């Protein structure tokens, strides 16, 4: 059964149709890829799914419910977490606190309990510590937990965003170009991390330009161009698709 599905999804910016009647489907436990040339509308798809942009038609169905038009925080509560192409971590907070933000929806301490520092707060903080440390360990950042985030190198900030997303215990994780800007070793580590997350029964939809990454991880790939789906299938199926090659490289000369 499809966990996440878009149905004839449309997003327009003025006269430009950034997402054009798009049908996507991510099944339970699957890792799907979303690829396409620059400017083809991939990030816009994620922004519409997560509620940052309002759609202009069509449906987003998640776990059997229509979620288009919900606010981003509501989408998060439904069980969709994401990372960003240009990192959005909290630079002046510690690495630990960045991951703690991911637990916002799963913690319950209210103002009263916080101000009077009740046992409930202490218990909750204790309960989440283990989870935060486990997530940091998974992405290899445990030793940096008390470091200020802005002092981390780019690659580490990127995986920190992933740690922050997974502690929210999402049913699906949307990764926006997770390998962009990483070196070869970091990319390989990242593939292991993504595989590990997938094993925890989290579906993944990833946008990526790094084709080795897509090939190594995904069981299904969607290719879009100008917001339209131009191909879908396994990586090997779409690799030789003439439409895909044309979208990336242009039409070959006939002479």
């Amino acid at each position, binding site marked *: 059964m499809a966990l996440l599905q878009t149905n004839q999804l449309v997003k327009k910016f003025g006269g430009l149709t950034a997402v054009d009647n798009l049908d996507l489907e991510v099944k339970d436990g699957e890792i799907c890829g979303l690829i396409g040339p*620059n400017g083809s509308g991939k990030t816009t798809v994620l922004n519409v799914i997560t509620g940052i942009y309002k759609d202009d038609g069509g449906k987003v169905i998640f776990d059997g419910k229509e979620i288009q038009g919900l606010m981003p925080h509501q989408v*998060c*509560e439904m069980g969709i977490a994401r990372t960003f192409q*240009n990192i959005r971590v*909290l*630079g002046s907070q510690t690495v630990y606190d960045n991951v703690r933000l*991911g*637990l916002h929806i799963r913690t319950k*301490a209210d103002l009263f309990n916080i101000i009077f*520092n009740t046992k409930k707060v202490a218990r909750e903080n204790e309960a989440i510590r283990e989870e935060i440390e486990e997530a940091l360990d998974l992405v290899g950042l445990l030793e940096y937990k008390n470091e200020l985030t802005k002092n981390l190198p780019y690659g580490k900030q990127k995986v920190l965003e992933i740690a922050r997303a997974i502690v929210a215990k999402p049913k699906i994780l949307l990764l926006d170009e997770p390998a962009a800007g990483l070196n070869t070793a970091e990319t390989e580590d990242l593939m292991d991390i993504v595989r590990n997350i997938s094993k925890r029964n989290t579906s993944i939809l990833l946008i990526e330009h790094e084709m080795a990454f897509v090939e190594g991880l995904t069981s299904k790939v969607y290719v879009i161009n100008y917001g339209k789906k131009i191909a879908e299938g396994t990586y090997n199926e779409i690799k030789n698709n003439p439409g895909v090659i044309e979208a990336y490289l242009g039409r070959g000369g006939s002479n």
Partner: protein
Amino acid sequence: MGKAFGFFKKNILLIIVLLLALVPVAGVPSYQFYIIERGLQNAIIVLSLVILLGYTGLLSLGHAGLLAVGAYTFGILTVTYGINPWIALMVAPVVAAALGALLGIPSFKLSGPFLVVTTIAFGEIVRILILNWEKLTGGPYGLGGIKSVIPSAKGMYYFLLVLVFLVSVATMRLSKSRIGLAFKAIKEDEVAAEVMGVNVRRYKLLAFTISSFMAGLSGALFACLTNYLNPDSFTFAESATYLLMVVLGGMANVVGAVASALGVTALPEVLRFMVRSRMVVYSLVLLLVIRYSKSLNMKTLRKVLGKPEGSTLGGGE
């Protein structure tokens, strides 16, 4: 020595409070004593800005208006309606919080300088209302005969000191909590906060409400200290002074806020011997502190004031 410094740093709030507790024993002249009391009362409104500006990144220059709401609520309830001052002291912050929550609504859509202008307008509206609603507030003649919750000066001083301590501790706890983290996430990256499940509108409203509650409390205490209220005490200049205090204190720093509130309140009085050049020196001292203090984070203020919201949404694709 490092250890001793660590102890000092960890307990600095307690040390400051204990030192201040010695003031009445030391036999400080009554005017100076009153200035320290005013400093403590200011500390509470500056702490309210720590939460709003320092944590959440929302700048209000209308807090004098909220102070006025707290002060006049206390004054009107006790003088006009003869209500018990302790009850009035509890009602005043609630009234300010309710109005402050309304002030928070524009922050859903407005940010940076646009929100600042809205809060300035709020402050002015409150002041002009007080000035013209003579029947209720006494208008330009002011509202006199206000009795403090604690008549004895010493008793009031200790009461203020305990309140400042408790509010400081509560603010620190808030800072460390999930709510504080949500506030800070909103300040640093609203989109990231929202995508991680923070209901940005709700939390902005919460920040405004908490902050206004504290401003109202400070206002009621102001009424207790001065026993007389006049719209001139709640001008835009006052709001700007509170902003100055919170910035000097390091914006998100509780102890810094308390120290800065006490220092900036006392400074013009300390300089009183200079008679005419007093305000020039006052301004100069503040300018130098701002220019040369290492702990001040002007980048944050610049960001709060200048950055238009939602400049990039992960785009660039």
